């Protein structure tokens, strides 16, 4: 379990234009509780504070205020115990590998640094899992970006940590590798607690049990994707594609663009009945009619605006 209380981090940066130092609040009094075995999504625009939060949890950045615990260990006071429970992909993680060593040599190096002196079996297992067998002895400078991502994830999994922090794990890789990695995480990491930071809402919606929207260092929203949709979006949309849009102008909350009629409603059944009546009475030809649930993207935009 991961518990974050009142976590705050401010950075001081030089403003070269105004030639003075300015304070940037990267993380602003965040509170979170992530349960064991949960995939928790941290979504937010660039610079929202996702990476800083993950780096603080990973013991790489010290917080200014607040406390964090990972599996019962205080992140600042028991940093070493925390690190032993973690696998981390943070920042530009493919740069955090030695490009002039082979994939296997990288794995062996990091395994040894984790005091795993007899790690050959584990290394082979990971190489097999990530499909890197053929390239295991090649320098990783020759690897594709997707392969480097896989290797970085393999390095993070060396000690089979119960907790994983994945910061933008699928950014910059092709759809096929992305699909493979998502399936692998779904199938193989079921017992792990994962924080998945991303600005890709589709990926978060697909992968995460619960999410928190972070903006300007603050948690704006928190809950399961469905809960958030209900909380922020208490209506659904009915979309009608027809040439006779004029017939629908008298309905409440209607928006017409070209041949598309969009109706917002809290009572889908009754509104659909009303639409059916209009269609029958006026003998209108309807090409398509469908109801739409709000997307996470719409929730995200609403949350950011809020």
């Amino acid at each position, binding site marked *: 379990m991961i518990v974050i209380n009142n976590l705050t981090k401010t950075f001081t940066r030089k403003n070269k234009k105004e030639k003075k130092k300015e304070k940037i609040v990267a993380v602003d009094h965040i509170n979170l509780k992530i349960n064991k075995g949960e995939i928790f999504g941290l979504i937010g625009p660039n610079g929202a504070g996702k990476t*800083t939060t993950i780096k603080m949890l990973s013991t790489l950045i010290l917080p200014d205020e607040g406390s964090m615990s990972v599996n019962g260990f205080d992140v600042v006071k028991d940093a070493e115990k925390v690190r032993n429970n973690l696998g981390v992909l943070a920042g530009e993680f493919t740069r955090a590998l030695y490009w002039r060593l082979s994939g296997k040599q990288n794995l062996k190096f990091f395994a040894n*640094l984790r005091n795993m002196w007899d790690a050959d079996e584990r290394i082979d297992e990971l190489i097999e899992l990530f499909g890197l067998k053929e390239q295991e002895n090649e320098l990783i400078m020759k690897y594709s970006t997707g392969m480097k991502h896989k290797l970085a994830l393999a390095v993070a999994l060396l000690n089979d940590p119960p907790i994983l922090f994945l910061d933008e794990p699928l950014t910059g890789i092709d759809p096929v590798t992305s699909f493979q990695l998502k399936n692998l995480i779904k199938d193989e990491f079921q017992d792990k607690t994962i924080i998945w930071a991303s600005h890709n809402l589709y990926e978060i919606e697909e992968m995460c049990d619960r999410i928190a929207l972070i903006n300007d260092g603050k948690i704006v929203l928190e809950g399961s994707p469905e809960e958030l949709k209900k909380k922020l979006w208490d209506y659904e949309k009915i979309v009608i594609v027809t040439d006779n849009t004029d017939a629908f102008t008298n309905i409440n909350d209607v928006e017409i663009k070209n041949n598309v009629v969009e109706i917002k409603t809290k009572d889908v059944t009754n509104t659909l009945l009303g639409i059916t009546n209009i269609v029958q009475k006026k003998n209108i030809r309807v090409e398509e009619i469908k109801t739409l649930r709000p997307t996470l993207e719409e929730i995200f935009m609403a949350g950011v605006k809020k």
Partner: protein
Amino acid sequence: MMTDELKKIGVFIKRDFRILFTYRLAFSTAFLGIVFNLFYLVLFGSMFGSRELSALTPYGGDFISYILVGSIGWGFLWSIMGMTSSSLRSEMMMGTMESILLTSTKISTIMIAYTIFGCIFGLLSIGILISVGFLCFSVSFGNATIYTFIIMFLSALLMMGFGMIFGGLTIWVKNIGQATPLIQNIAMFFCGVYFPITVLPEYLQPIAKYVPFYYSIEGLRKSLIPTTPESEIIRYIIVLLVLSIAFILIGLYTLYKGLNKAKKDGSLVFY
């Protein structure tokens, strides 16, 4: 715990050699550079012919031997220093420093590993210089005593301390590595590497006493001269011992302070 950290030093050295051998051309040219530099200096010295140089009388008077010892000592010292500070800087720039720190490896272990790798690299250059000196100029190091090795060992510790201070400052100030050539040249000026400090203007000569590396180079030279009284060499050894302990302690302090600051600033990675 302690054994694990010691084993990790070996892991770092193995990694560094693996990476080094992927740069075969750079590796070979680095050594060729050392040899060419030596040739330039020796040929320059040959302009003086067989004339004994009065300034070198306390060191046996032979310019080639003087240059060779200076080059060996200086090359050894700065390969350690260069390795510690540049390795740390490149780990931070590449982003590998964060991955290493995530494994709970102690920063002191990392620095010791860099130092030992620097020592090995330095010893390889010494081997080359001694071979070239012997084969091309008939300079022999048969006078080397146990004191010579003690002085080299203490000098390595001194440079490790200096490297740690520089490493800590690199983590702290980031771009300080760019000042390395300047520091190196100023230090070389006062250490008697290519000329004895007695040829410096009188008002500059006392500065050498405050440059720690002076004791390494001077001690190394004195240990190779058979007529040097044992007490004088021991004096150099004591000074080097005190300096290396002081530098290592200051180095560890600077390193931990620098690391703490980088963790506060979020600047363990920089570009």
